[in-house]
């Protein structure tokens, strides 16, 4: 038998208040695609950060191709032939794609005509990238591609991918998998972290399952179902979201009419004549490939970017096109943006401060201009409890939470404010199966309680599960909308790619869809 490429033994890592990894053993063989599964906060990222030399472990050792090694920093890891795609991007906004890639590879590799090599590799793997663009102009999906391309350029022996597909489109995922299988065939080992269990089944040869920092099980994904793997991770049964019966849709709560917006950034997407309405009790899903105007739509809906025509956005009976986020919140709107750190939450601030920031008015957390700390902390604790956020306490900073846990927190914060309209962008990005089900359930419940819900997501499975109507956004234009039983996933996929299709059932709400491209 060949020697394992990587062998971990007894790895333990403690953070204040948590044991993130407890005595973890892991063996990865050459050419093996090895999945690392676990709920949010199980310690997956912590473990791979140890392998990549970003963090030290408190105990345990590592063998690389049979030799015991110490990896003090990422450079040493890269020298051994380890590449990593980070969960939270390690990118520099004010620099170009090329510079970002050059920074992540060794100096020798960065020499010469990097620009054309990037184009080459991104074309051959179907990960389109323009090396000269600035990162801050790119969508999250495009940013993910930078990380992937950066790794591929290094021709590594072990590729660690921490949730690389969470924001890729189905086609992009397919392309990536082709690449990964090819690499695996060439003998490259891949350590693959994802919450998309269907993908794991398709791609991985073996899986290690972690819970609360410990390895609890191994399995062969091909022989399991997504459900059984989710249950192994959770240690209990998975409850799928259920659509409450007999909901009456009421008056339109969110009406958008002929919304045009020119993006301030010339690489951004302009919005053209977007019109739709969401009634109370209804969930409208908007599908689309990242970078087709979703972020811009979110920005105008949340009031971060104002539009000249005040009547183009109506919440309840208020026209708010020219009103900022605070006024829109006051009008009953809540939003969950795409970027958790920096947009959805202030990374360095504590959880209760983050809860206060968005809930100040509607949760009445201010008293004659003073912050009511106790009340705010109680509100934050309520979020932590109800949405099962894993954290030692609300005094912890937002950036100490694992990715999925922070998402749950932000989500809970908005939902507990009883919004009459809620707009969410990629609600379950990076959230584990159990929590994703819980988040979807809470969206359904919110609608059942009479809220108007708008879900903008790339995850078609998710949209089909929760939405009452689905529309597609492509290049800044919104299509008509169809109930999920009148359109297929394939048809939506084509629409997302900008190809005209005419599903049998036309939009029920002809007015809302009247401005299709």
């Amino acid at each position, binding site marked *: 038998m060949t020697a394992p490429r990587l062998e971990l033994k007894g790895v333990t890592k403690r953070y204040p208040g948590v044991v993130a990894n407890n005595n973890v053993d892991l063996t990865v063989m050459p050419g093996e695609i090895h999945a690392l599964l676990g709920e949010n906060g199980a310690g997956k990222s912590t473990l791979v*950060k140890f392998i990549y*030399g970003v963090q030290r472990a408190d105990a345990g050792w590592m063998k690389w191709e049979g030799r015991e090694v110490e990896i003090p920093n990422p450079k040493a890891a890269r020298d051994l032939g380890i590449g990593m795609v980070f969960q939270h991007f390690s990118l520099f906004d004010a620099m170009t794609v090329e510079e970002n890639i050059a920074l992540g590879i060794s100096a020798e590799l960065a020499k010469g005509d990097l620009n054309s090599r990037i184009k080459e590799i991104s074309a051959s793997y179907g990960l389109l990238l323009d090396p000269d663009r600035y990162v801050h102009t790119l969508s999250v999906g495009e940013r993910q591609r930078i990380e992937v391309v950066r790794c591929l350029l290094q021709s590594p022996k072990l590729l660690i991918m921490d949730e690389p597909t969470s924001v890729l489109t189905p086609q992009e995922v397919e392309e990536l998998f082709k690449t990964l299988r090819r690499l695996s065939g060439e003998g490259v080992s891949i350590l693959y972290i994802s919450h998309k269990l269907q993908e794991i089944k398709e791609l991985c040869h073996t899986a290690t399952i972690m819970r609360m920092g410990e390895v609890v099980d191994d399995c062969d994904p091909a022989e399991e179902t997504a459900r059984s793997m989710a249950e192994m991770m959770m240690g209990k049964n998975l409850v799928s979201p259920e659509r409450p019966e007999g909901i009456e849709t009421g008056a339109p709560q969110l009406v958008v009419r002929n919304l045009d917006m020119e993006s301030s950034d010339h690489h951004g997407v302009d919005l053209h004549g977007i019109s739709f309405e969401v009634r109370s009790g209804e969930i409208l899903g908007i599908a689309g490939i990242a970078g087709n105007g979703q972020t811009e739509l979110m920005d105008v809906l949340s009031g971060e970017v104002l539009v000249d025509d005040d009547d183009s956005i109506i919440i309840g009976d208020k026209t708010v096109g020219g009103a900022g986020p605070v006024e829109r919140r006051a009008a009953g709107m809540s939003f969950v943006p795409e970027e958790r750190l920096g947009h959805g939450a202030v990374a360095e601030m504590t959880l209760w401060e983050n809860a206060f920031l968005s809930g100040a008015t509607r949760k009445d957390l201010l008293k004659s201009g003073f912050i009511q700390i106790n009340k705010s902390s109680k509100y934050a604790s309520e979020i932590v409890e109800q949405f099962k956020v894993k954290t030692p306490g609300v005094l912890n900073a937002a950036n100490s939470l694992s990715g999925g846990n922070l998402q749950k927190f932000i989500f809970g914060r908005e939902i507990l404010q009883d919004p009459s309209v809620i707009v969410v962008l990629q609600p379950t990005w990076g959230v584990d199966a159990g929590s994703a089900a819980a988040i979807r359930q809470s969206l359904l419940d919110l609608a059942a309680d009479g809220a108007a819900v708008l879900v903008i997501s790339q995850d078609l499975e998710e949209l089909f599960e929760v939405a009452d109507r689905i529309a597609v956004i492509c290049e800044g234009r919104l299509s008509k909308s169809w109930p999920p039983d009148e359109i297929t996933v394939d048809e939506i996929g084509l629409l997302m790619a900008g190809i005209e299709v005419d599903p049998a059932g036309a939009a029920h709400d002809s007015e809302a869809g009247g401005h299709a491209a």
Partner: protein
Amino acid sequence: MPEWFIPFLLSVVTASTPFVFAGIGELVVEKSGVLNLGVEGMMIVGAVSAFAVGVTTGSGALAVLTGAFAGAAMALIFGVLTLYLLSNQVATGLALTLFGLGLSALMGHGMVGKTFAGLPHLEFPLLEQIPVIGPLIGTLLLGHDVLVYFSVVLMIAVGWFLNKSRAGMVLRAVGENHNAAHSIGYPVNLVRLLAVLFGGAMAGLGGAYLSLVHTPLWVENMTAGRGWIALALVVFASWRPARVFVGAYLFGGLTIMQLHAQGLGIEIPPQVLAMAPYLATILVLVIISRDSALIRLNAPACLGKSFHATG
């Protein structure tokens, strides 16, 4: 051409050169994400040390080196305090300025009244005899001391370093997103320390130029706020070396005009001219702030934030 014209221009050059040094040094520091408000303090300690060595040894080269070294030594204190002991950058920078002013007064106590011969200039007697253009080329273009030429080289070199070299890219990366730079594996605080030391050396050099060339004698508090102007200059120039250079000459010209205006009997209150650099900086800030893309691309996103690696 009035006869005062060439001396006027020459004095603009000497007045501007300290701004170029201190400004470009601080620019590099800020690009790495550190805000060092101690420029004034580093400058004045550079000035007094250079002057002391210059007067005692008579060697200009040694004096200049001492100035740079003294500035870097001051910066080292700042660097260790803010980067490794995680003290607040703004407060530490202010303290450094106060400390430098006091220390320089103490060090310069015995040197008040002495003078220094100045740094050697290039001279072209033959060239200068050509009428009209002779003195222009001879003195204005070729007749400066070495440090003036060095300041031009510095601007070009720093511009090249930041935009074209890998090390410069790493420095910008550290200033842009220190968490990402750390997870890719760059030693964030080491990069910052080196930048801070460089900034200190350049501020010290600017100070040395003041006490050796601009006014070759030691007067207590002789930097007279130039360090603050240099700081303003970096923002004024929206973190671009060439603009720092232009700005330095603009502000240098203003300080000289201030002197000459009084001499020529022009009725501009000196206070107005004295505040002009700051007003200009505020104005530029207002203008560039209107374009958020401009700020995003030029201002280092981690400016003034401490970095502490967990784990």
